[in-house]
């Protein structure tokens, strides 16, 4: 014992060369086994000490009651955090998927307990686990990096193979000699005194403070940037670190580019080429003109179009047109001279006729009316609203339309005529002919004789209103 005391004295001198005697913080007694420390602790406890503790490399059981340790509040931390986790999970899932951004997934409800349960369970565990470990650390007053006990070389074995009883100087009964005597009675293998740490020794290593300051300042940079951006709205596109597919290195329609001499990104077809699937060898079918006739070869399609788009008086005078949409004497049209086909270049069957009726009702009736009188719903609405720019479509029953060769009508439908846009891009070529077939039938229906009607259908005609 005396030897160890001597060591202690020596250490005190080493640490505190100046004799400003620091306060005593605690006294330590060392024991070799769990059994001996337990026996000693029983004595200390019976002697009525209150501010003392036992340190051991593993939990020694039976000590808790001697130290009068009350059962820890830790389970309440766990329970509370677990419940908070459940509530947070449910509220989060409900708010995010049912309130803030509700979106349908295969007809499932926006929020359902069943689907929300797994995540609620995981968050319960997560919160509870963090609270348990965090709570254990906080209740144990950790982290605590400087401790007067660590000054004792001997005490370091408390985490390996020795057991210690520490009586704090804060105990009201504390007195150096009394504790010394008590420890000796308990047959401690060594006894040491521990001095309170002087403030300078208890400090962090000098590097830690600047590191924390720098890290703290750096940590403020992102929130500051966010705050700055949020308070200064801008019209500029969003800042993208990685552009993903938002900005693709490609040309979009109707844009310009210096890559091409003419600045257009939409490139015209190269001269002398035909696009795939666009070859139109059958001029009867595709242009509605007699194949092989000299004139066809002479016509440049590009020359025809501007004529049809500019021709006619309707463009210049909307006023007059609206009152009198059908010019009484149309000026001679250069198109009239072309070699239009007069026969249908497709097979004329009931099936084609039905198809034509269907397509006509879809594509043409809105303007031209179901019967072709130029009174479709769009037209009527436009006239009701007194739309100045609207032109009443020509009635198909008008003389000049009736007399047109079918090839010319085909040309009108395909490329447009005066104010009417072309439908060549929208309606496949066979369907355009089918529509014209039906158009011819509509025209025929106004001028038919009784002998045009098949005999078996004549009886049903009686239901028609008499003229």
């Amino acid at each position, binding site marked *: 014992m005396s030897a160890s005391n001597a060591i202690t004295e020596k250490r005190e001198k080493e640490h505190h060369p100046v004799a400003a005697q620091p306060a005593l913080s605690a006294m330590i007694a060392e024991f070799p086994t769990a059994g001996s420390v337990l026996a000693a602790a029983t004595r200390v406890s019976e002697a009525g000490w209150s501010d003392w503790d036992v340190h051991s490399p593993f939990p020694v059981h039976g000590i808790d009651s001697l130290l009068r340790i009350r059962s820890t509040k830790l389970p309440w931390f766990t329970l509370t955090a677990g419940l908070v986790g459940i509530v947070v999970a449910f509220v989060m899932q409900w708010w*995010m998927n049912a309130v803030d951004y509700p979106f349908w997934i295969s007809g499932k409800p926006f929020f359902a307990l069943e689907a929300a349960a797994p995540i609620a369970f995981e*968050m319960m565990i997560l919160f509870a686990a963090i609270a348990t470990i965090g709570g254990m650390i906080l209740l144990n007053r950790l982290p605590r990096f400087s401790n007067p006990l660590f000054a004792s070389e001997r005490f370091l074995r408390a*985490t390996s193979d020795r057991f210690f009883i520490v009586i704090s100087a804060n105990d009201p009964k504390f007195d150096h000699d009394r504790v010394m005597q008590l420890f000796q009675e308990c047959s401690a293998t060594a006894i040491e005194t521990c001095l309170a740490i002087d403030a300078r020794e208890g400090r962090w290593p000098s590097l830690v403070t600047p590191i924390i300051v720098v890290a703290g300042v750096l940590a403020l940079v992102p929130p500051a940037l966010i705050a700055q951006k949020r308070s200064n709205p801008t019209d500029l596109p969003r800042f993208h670190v990685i552009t993903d597919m938002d900005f693709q290195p490609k040309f979009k329609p109707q844009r310009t580019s210096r890559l091409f001499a003419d600045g257009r990104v939409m490139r015209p077809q190269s001269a002398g080429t035909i696009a795939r699937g666009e070859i139109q060898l059958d001029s009867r079918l595709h242009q509605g003109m007699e194949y092989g006739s000299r004139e066809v070869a002479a016509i440049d399609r590009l020359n025809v179009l501007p004529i049809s788009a500019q021709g006619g008086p309707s463009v210049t005078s909307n006023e007059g047109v609206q009152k009198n949409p059908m010019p009484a004497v149309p000026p001679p049209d250069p198109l009239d001279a072309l070699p239009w086909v007069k026969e249908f270049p497709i097979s004329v069957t009931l099936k084609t006729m039905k198809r034509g009726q269907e397509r006509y009702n879809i594509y043409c009736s809105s303007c031209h009316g179901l019967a072709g009188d130029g009174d479709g719903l769009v037209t009527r609405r436009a006239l009701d609203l007194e739309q100045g720019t609207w032109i009443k479509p020509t009635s198909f029953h008008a003389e000049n339309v009736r007399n047109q060769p079918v090839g010319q009508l085909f040309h009108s439908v395909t490329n447009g005529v005066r104010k009417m846009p072309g439908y060549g891009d929208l309606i496949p070529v066979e369907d355009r002919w089918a529509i014209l077939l039906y158009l011819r039938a509509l025209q025929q229906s106004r001028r038919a004789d009784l002998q045009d009607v098949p005999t078996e259908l004549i009886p049903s005609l009686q239901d028609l209103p008499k003229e």
Partner: protein
Amino acid sequence: MSALINDLMNNTHEVPGKRASLVLGGLNNSSITDRVCEIAEAPTPPRAWYIAFAVSSSLTLMLFGLVGYLIFTGVGVWGNNAPVFWAWDIVNFVFWVGIGHAGTLISAILFLFRQNWRTSINRFAEAMTIFAVICAGLFPTVHVGRIWVIYWLLPLPNQNAIWPNFRSPLLWDVFAVTTYATVSMLFWYMGMIPDFATFRDRAKTRNRQMIFGTLALGWTGSARQWHRYEKAYLLMAALATPLVISVHTVVSFDFAVSQVPGWHTTIFPPYFVAGAVFSGFAMVVTLMVPAREFFGLRELVTLRHLENMTKIILLTGTMVGYAYAMEFFTAWYSGNRYEQFAFMNRAFGPYAWAYWTMVTCNVISPQFFWFKKFRTTPWLMVIVCIFVNIGMWFERFVITVTSLSRDFLPSSWGYYQPTFVDIGMLIGSFGLFFTLFLLFCRYMPIVAISEVKSILPENQNPH
């Protein structure tokens, strides 16, 4: 810890002559501390460590290279393609998560069941859990393609002003796996605090003092600290036990909640959990046997520990075999043609080779553990366990790939083949796992020193 192990519940009593002691060689408090600490304090590790580290760290480098290649090029570098959009990435993910589960089982479930023998191996197994979860997390992370927006998986406000879909099992998986990783890490760290304090107090250099001093948080081993610590340990075990079961259940939901034949079955959760424990224990044994040789831990990790683990492998392996049989029964009993086809296709279709590899490795090989010789000869155990690990990888492959490659529409059937990136990343993930593990063995307390001391007969409660 042993506060919980009262005499009524304790079925691991040391009965002299009946069971081998859990700590051999007459080790006591001092020598156990020395034995474990010296591994980390030794100036150089054993030569075998260097060789193993060289191999595994080069494989890790290869893995990182392939991950970089994948990120810069796109997930097309893998073999995944119509109709098998989930392939080795998911197979590897489930495989590694499963491996991890043994660690939690040992540290939490065996703790609750008062199995004292866990103390020598739990630190190992917990470390393995964490490294396995890291490997597992890698695959789904890179398989999202645009990895730079992976935070979209989390409910964080983003510039698109949308939230993740909480009705999807894949999102449940995100929560389950991140929770699992976090809780395992916390549990592992908490378990190490007293041992870090031991390291700190033995530290000879300033660096070690600083590092372990920080990690130990100022632990002094006072009775008050131990009191709260033990309570926290019990609570963590009670939290981790349902957690580990939920994690593999949710992983199985990734499959079971879909409608693909062969996936859409209610047997999946228990079957996956049993498989996870099975593969995890096989991995623990595979790692433990060489580690105890090289680091001189034969007296701490005894044959009794190993034998106990082989028994668990035998049990869970048999459960897995039962599940395989049950799957066929369910398919037949359901009367559902697609389900029946899916299973016939597994066993006799183009992937029959994978199916029978799986059955051989998982059902037949653990049965060797009925023989005492296999349960007590370390190298025989390792061989069986390696087969089990191969088998469990194939199990996930069979489930994922056979079902997807031939589902409802025969016109879109296909045959999946991995690319060199797939293969390289699987091998590389083993490299990563072993690299982390070797670093752990070298620098950390690889046996829970304080826990082992608490089960020493000499330290048992004197009254």
